[in-house]
């Protein structure tokens, strides 16, 4: 058995907010041609039909104001360029037009095409180059935060494409419920930053199972003590506020929060695991973003297995119903572990349903019932069975790396 899988005891998922792959990692195409990032051939038309090319001019804060629209109708425009015909083709040509709709300023609308340089994002780009970066990790639906995060918790959004209250429909249990009710019992936790930031999963989990939640300080403590649960999901700080320990800067990177604050948070999560040698050797950390935030990406989201729910034409706001048969826009995603070879680039297709799919398969094996979307989702960790497919196993090294970077946080 691969020692990386033999040693694996903990899966940690950190989900950040509202940034696209090209926006955050697009610059890495120039460093490693296998990374499907930004090239000089990419462009979007503005409202005068002039072509606007991606440029490395993204700023940490204050640039994307107003917050780019990332609700279903706007994302539909971004993907299909405004084509509403029955046999339309996805072109990813509607981003500048979509952003223009919010401020009616042609020059400002072009900023939706801006991306960060490698130097501006030392943490994210280092982790992408040092470990495993996913060329094809997409949001689960072409829409906003709450439904996309639902796919990470339940493998479905129960037919929702908006930000309204989302009620769980039996029989699909959250990944936490599955683990906690398993025999033998597994451990699972959601760590939010603190009670002032709280969680985005309120209606079902916080309201009915608040005992599932811990704070970021508890996460750090659990890392130090080696008491991290089998599976945990970490949420960043969603708002600027004061706490007992001082000023807390929002670290989710949702526009218009400072992107550098999010870089520090990602580094702190990584270092918390790395500083405990036995935890470092037995943990796989997935860093992913919930959706693209309305920001440009060039890769067409593929079609996928439809979910068993349908969002009505009224709910989508586009005049067309949606059968959850197309993924959302591409987001940054990377898998971190000392057992991952440096410079791994993965081209298989994933979305957030891959999270409960992977965690369930790893800890519970065969399990049902699961949503059609989750059942059809690829897994990012191979089950540790007799015949592990070496082409799919990301934790493939025979000896653990000792050259992994550290951050001064």
């Amino acid at each position, binding site marked *: 058995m691969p020692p990386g899988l033999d040693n694996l005891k903990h899966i940690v998922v950190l989900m950040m907010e509202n940034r696209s792959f090209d926006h955050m990692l697009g610059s890495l195409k120039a460093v490693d041609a296998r990374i499907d990032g930004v090239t000089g051939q990419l462009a979007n038309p503005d409202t005068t039909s002039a072509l606007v090319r991606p440029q490395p001019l993204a700023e940490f804060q204050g640039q994307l104001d107003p917050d780019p629209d990332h609700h279903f109708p706007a994302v539909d425009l971004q993907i299909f360029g405004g084509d509403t015909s029955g046999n339309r083709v996805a072109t990813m040509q509607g981003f500048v037009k979509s952003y223009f709709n919010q401020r009616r300023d042609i020059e400002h609308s072009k900023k939706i095409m801006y991306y960060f340089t490698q130097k501006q994002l030392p*943490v994210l780009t280092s982790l992408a180059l040092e470990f495993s970066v996913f060329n094809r990790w997409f949001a689960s639906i072409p829409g906003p935060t*709450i439904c996309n995060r639902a796919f990470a918790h339940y493998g479905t959004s129960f037919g929702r494409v908006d930000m309204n209250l989302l009620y769980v429909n039996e029989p699909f249990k959250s990944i936490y419920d599955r683990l906690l009710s398993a025999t033998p019992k597994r451990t699972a936790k959601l760590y939010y930053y603190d*009670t*002032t930031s709280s969680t985005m999963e*309120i209606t079902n989990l916080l309201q009915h199972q608040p005992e599932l939640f811990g704070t970021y300080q508890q996460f750090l403590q659990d890392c130090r003590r080696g008491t991290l649960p089998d599976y945990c999901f970490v949420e960043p700080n969603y708002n600027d*506020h004061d706490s007992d320990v001082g000023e807390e800067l929002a670290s989710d990177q949702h*526009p218009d929060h400072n992107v550098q604050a999010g*870089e*520090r948070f990602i580094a702190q999560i990584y270092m918390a695991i790395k500083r405990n040698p036995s935890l470092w050797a037995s943990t796989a950390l997935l860093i992913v973003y919930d959706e693209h935030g309305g920001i440009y990406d060039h890769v067409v989201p593929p079609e996928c297995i439809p979910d068993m729910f349908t969002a009505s034409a009224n709910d989508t706001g586009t005049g067309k119903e949606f059968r959850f048969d197309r993924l959302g826009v591409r987001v940054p995603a990377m898998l971190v572990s000392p057992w991952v070879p440096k410079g791994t680039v993965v081209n298989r297709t994933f979305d957030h349903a891959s999270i409960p799919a992977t965690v369930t398969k790893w800890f519970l094996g065969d399990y049902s019932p699961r949503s059609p979307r989750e059942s059809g989702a690829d897994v990012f960790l191979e089950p540790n069975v007799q015949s592990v497919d070496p082409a799919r196993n990301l934790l493939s090294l025979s000896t653990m790396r000792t050259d992994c970077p*550290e951050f001064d946080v």
Partner: protein
Amino acid sequence: MTLIHVPQPPKSAKNPNRPASSLLKVQIEHLHNAEKRLPLRHRTNTYINAIRTEGEAAEYIREVTEAIHKAHKEAATPRSLDVRKRTKMAVVTGKRRARTRPSGAGKQSSSRRREQKK
């Protein structure tokens, strides 16, 4: 092993007067919905439509999140203590009633009292 420097964001990055984003507004709505299911003593009685800034949102989010945790913790308090208390009170009440009531006397129904008067 490479040590990579991670710059600190500037002090000016913090802005609690920033208008609350659509995400925070949704979080507030969901918390407000959850708050309605809490016992009255745990509710904040906040008019959420008046929340405009990130700082105001943060305060409400903290209050309701802590209220949810507190309410659940109270509800999870072992009930055996309550049963013991109620049992003890019932015994004490019963003894008091026995001391104040004349021997052999019991509460009579109104129909029996009418019969006795006849």
